[in-house]
């Protein structure tokens, strides 16, 4: 692999709460190269957004603790000053936030917010900046944007607000785009157009894209590589085909087994992984998936490292089972991969 553009090592993030220390991110490491699209998938609450926001310096609150590094062009983002990160944000690394309303100012007109953002990085007169905004909004499918830019965020639909965020993030041709659930409020046709825009950003400028998403259809459509997170850790990482056709971690099996498809018969009940994710304030010893894993054995009380177990060296996972065991134990239904339910656990 060529020199990575962004290299994250042993990232840990924890928050002090009334109920104890919540370990939201627990030793996350990954590299992403120029022109690469890395999809990050995983359990709701597993630390995807906190990891992404930490790279941007946006989780620096008094109750948060961090360690680890994130090297970008020879500079560590985790220890960089707030001023430095402010320059990097929006200009070199842009982020599309999961919750558009949490990052749009509710009492400022949409056009004015984007103008402000553009002018923070580029000296453009107002009239020209407004023209740019109209063009940006039309490129994300908001028609007659000129008539709409004086609206407030509440006057836009959920998907329109999400597209405003996308327009903002793309406004400066970033080198790294971190997109946290960028298409959850979009219908599939507009989603396809947005994914096309992300692809062309990558193709034209060689940007690296970290795409956090729950939509495995989107992953199949756009990702080069995939990282799967569970309870603060990356439990598996590999090429798109590795993850879909030779998944190594039992959590990944469960995730893939929970997919519903419109082109397959409708099951009476949706398959789901039995049980709850662990409490992050009181995590199980060893493998975090152990309490829900039907294949767990004595060794699993030790933390499995994220390493290459499959031949080839690029496909990493955190499960103690041997590759042979994994390939025979995962349930292969016709055309699908799933996780057998754990005996005694509620379905």
């Amino acid at each position, binding site marked *: 692999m060529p020199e990575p553009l962004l290299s994250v090592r042993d990232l840990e993030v924890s928050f002090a*709460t009334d*109920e104890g220390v919540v370990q939201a991110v627990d030793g996350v490491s990954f590299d992403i190269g120029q022109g690469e699209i890395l999809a990050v*998938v*995983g*359990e*709701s*609450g*597993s630390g995807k*957004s*906190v990891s992404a926001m930490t790279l941007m310096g946006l989780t620096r609150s008094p109750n948060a603790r961090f360690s680890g590094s994130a090297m970008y062009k020879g500079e560590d983002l985790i220890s960089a000053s707030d001023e430095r990160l402010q320059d990097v944000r929006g200009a070199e690394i842009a982020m599309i936030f999961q*919750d*558009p309303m*949490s990052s749009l100012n*509710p009492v400022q007109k949409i056009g004015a917010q984007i103008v402000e953002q553009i002018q923070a990085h580029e000296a453009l007169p107002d009239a020209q900046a407004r023209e740019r905004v109209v063009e940006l909004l039309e490129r994300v*499918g*908001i*028609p007659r944007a000129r008539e709409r830019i*004086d609206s407030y965020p509440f*006057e836009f*639909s*959920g*998907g329109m*607000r*999400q*597209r405003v965020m996308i327009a903002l993030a793309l406004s400066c041709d970033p080198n790294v785009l971190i997109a*946290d*659930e960028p298409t*959850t*409020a*979009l*219908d*599939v*046709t*507009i*989603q*396809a*157009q947005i994914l096309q825009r992300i692809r062309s950003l990558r193709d034209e400028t060689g940007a690296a894209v970290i795409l956090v998403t*729950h939509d*495995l*259809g*989107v*992953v*199949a459509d756009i990702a080069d590589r995939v990282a799967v997170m569970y309870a603060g850790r990356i439990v598996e990482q590999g090429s798109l085909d590795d993850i*879909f*056709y030779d998944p190594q971690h039992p959590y990944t099996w469960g*995730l893939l087994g*929970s997919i*519903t*498809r*419109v*082109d*397959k018969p*409708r099951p009476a*009940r*949706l*398959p*789901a*992984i039995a049980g*709850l994710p662990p409490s992050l304030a*009181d995590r199980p010893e060893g493998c975090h998936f152990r309490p829900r894993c039907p294949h767990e054995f004595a060794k699993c009380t030790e933390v499995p490292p994220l390493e290459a177990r499959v031949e080839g060296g690029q496909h990493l996972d955190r499960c103690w089972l041997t590759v042979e065991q994994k390939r025979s134990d995962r349930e292969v239904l016709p055309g699908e991969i799933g996780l057998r339910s754990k005996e005694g656990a509620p379905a």
Partner: protein
Amino acid sequence: MSSQPEPDGKLLEVEHLKLHFPIRDGIIFDRQVASVHAVDDVTFDLIEGETLGLVGESGCGKTTLSRALMRLLEPTDGTVRFRGKDVTHAGHKQLEPVRRDMQMVFQDPYASLNPRKRISQIIGLPLRLHGAPRDSIENRVRELLEKVGLHPEHLNRYPHEFSGGQRQRIGVARALALEPRLIVLDEPVSALDVSVQAQIINLLDDLQDEFKLTYLFVAHDLSVVRHVSDRIAVMYLGKLMEVSPAEELYTKPIHPYTGALLAAIPIPDPRENRRRERIVVGGEPPNPINPPSGCVFHPRCPRATDICRTVEPPLARYPSGHLAACHHPMNVTEDEIRAAERDETSPHGCGDELPKDSLETVSLPGSAGAS
């Protein structure tokens, strides 16, 4: 319970509902210069115990329609009846008895949770407002949290201390707290991984079986909508384009917009996805301030002809009970076209002419059963 359901089982009746937002001139503040036709003459019923799925383009009016039904917005025109009672323009006092029976899960979970309140207070609030005793509230809140897959340790946290999907589940727990009759769910599972999503949907299914709940389920994920719905309504630019028995929408889409939607679904299988050629609707997305004449989909429709540009098509009812508003329907036979009738839910002001021709049957790549 406030009143008995209607004998024909209609929990909610919506007739010719319109909701237009005024657009005001920025300088002279009071002058209305135009309006956004967010919901433009929509008619449908919700039968007690059913789930109606609602899908459509981003910005087509799904949230506005939902909020109007909940009477969080006052309709511009038309009627909303809940258990036979006209609530279209009901004031705060008159709405009080029906409020607890209708709950909503909001699309934007972050904006719908009070940032200064702990989760236990947020979920407990509807219970407190309706006079539940203190100690029962705490137990109920714990029980609800567990049902949506959260831990007791989350009780004392504030909304900003949760992940996106956790906040979404807090919204679901809050809506379930009062055991309402009708729940309008606006994108309730869009921030959840497929496994947690399945748990929440199975929970909603169980509650529906047990208490005969009625759901309006708004979502962009067409596989989730297929799973939960009995019927599905497809909306485009403030209007209903198609209303279909759930499974049939996927095997036999009649409206070209529905066809375009189904064709754009990404398949969660990289090899199949690479093999498939996807057709994405072209053209400029529509402008709700000045909607197109005739069929609102005509500027982007590959089948559009002169009549489409001038006459708004009525909702035609085909023999299986499937409704579609299109002059040139897909996937219907000559016999079905001959048997079609103008449905009484058609908007005011649309034409009387039913489709005459059935252009060739279009088979959709990747859609179920279509071959």
